[in-house]
């Protein structure tokens, strides 16, 4: 699904390149939430995600002049920076864990209660989160870029630095694995209830 990029993002980046801080605040208001959700679910850690997204917008502040609207959408550029920072963060976390400074744990705050009206819905979302955390990293990234970033296959390929075919395969495999996980969880629940 391809959407027309709102011209607002390009204009905001042009203003940011000129040193306009209110334009940066506006860009954060538009994309901060999506980038944070993507990073949090990819990294499995809300604190790391917050740090990554801050780094992303600092990078945007410094490099906004390098963004060329003719080469791609602003949102694709933002998600590409975020994806790269997330990969760096995972490596740093793995290194810190290796030398005993950190434990790798999934720590993402639970969503607001009113977003999940029923117990069944809560269970289903918890299963989806669990399924996401079990996906191979690149499949998880592709699924999240599609679902959270609303990027099409071409943009996912651009963000992940691969071909359109490989991005499509990652997305197909990730979705299939998630569906399998949901189906297995449903079977387990049925067995428990019977």
């Amino acid at each position, binding site marked *: 699904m391809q959407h027309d990029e*709102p011209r607002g*993002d390009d204009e905001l980046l042009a203003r940011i390149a000129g040193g306009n801080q209110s334009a940066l605040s506006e860009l954060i208001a538009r994309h901060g939430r999506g980038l944070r959700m993507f990073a949090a679910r990819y990294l499995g850690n*809300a604190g790391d995600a917050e740090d990554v997204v801050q*780094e992303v917008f600092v990078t945007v502040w410094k490099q906004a002049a390098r963004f060329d609207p003719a080469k791609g959408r602003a949102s694709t550029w933002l998600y590409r920076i975020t994806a790269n920072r997330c990969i760096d963060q995972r490596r740093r976390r793995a290194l810190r864990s290796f030398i005993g400074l950190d434990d790798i744990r999934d720590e993402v705050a639970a969503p607001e209660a009113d*977003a*999940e009206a029923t117990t069944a819905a809560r269970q*289903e979302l918890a299963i989806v989160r669990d399924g996401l955390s079990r996906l191979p990293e690149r499949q998880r990234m592709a699924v999240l870029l599609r*679902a*959270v970033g*609303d990027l099409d296959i071409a943009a996912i390929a651009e963000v992940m630095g691969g071909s359109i075919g490989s991005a499509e395969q990652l997305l197909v495999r990730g979705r299939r694995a998630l569906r399998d996980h949901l189906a297995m969880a449903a079977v387990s629940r049925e067995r428990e209830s019977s």
Partner: protein
Amino acid sequence: MTRDEFERHSLRFGAAVETWPAPFRQQALALLAAERKDDPDAALDRLVLEAALTDGDDQALARKVLARIEAGSARPSLLPRLLFSPAGFAACVAAVLVAATLAGYQVARLQDDPSDTELLALASGSSLADGGIAADAEGEGSL
């Protein structure tokens, strides 16, 4: 996304939902498509989006980003935190000890190792004088 939130975002981003930024756009489209039969991939994407929802304050994020820009550092260095953590401090102490041991070993080796001159004198049976081999009988003391 509720209908009230949808209306609020309409005032903020405009009437055309397609021009809204992610993830507001997908949530709005999901609301509009809630009663419409959709393809399974889109349904799974909506489920993933809902599962990915996290709390967060965009204004606080903007404040932190601007503070970081003012401070002039894109990323806090690992080194200060490493030094202040117990494990990091212990690692630094261990590194200093290893370095001191190696340095001591090198110095001791320099002091203890016989020089080439001494070995030469020993091999030729000469006694040592300051600065080299003592004068021997003619023809001796040199190889």
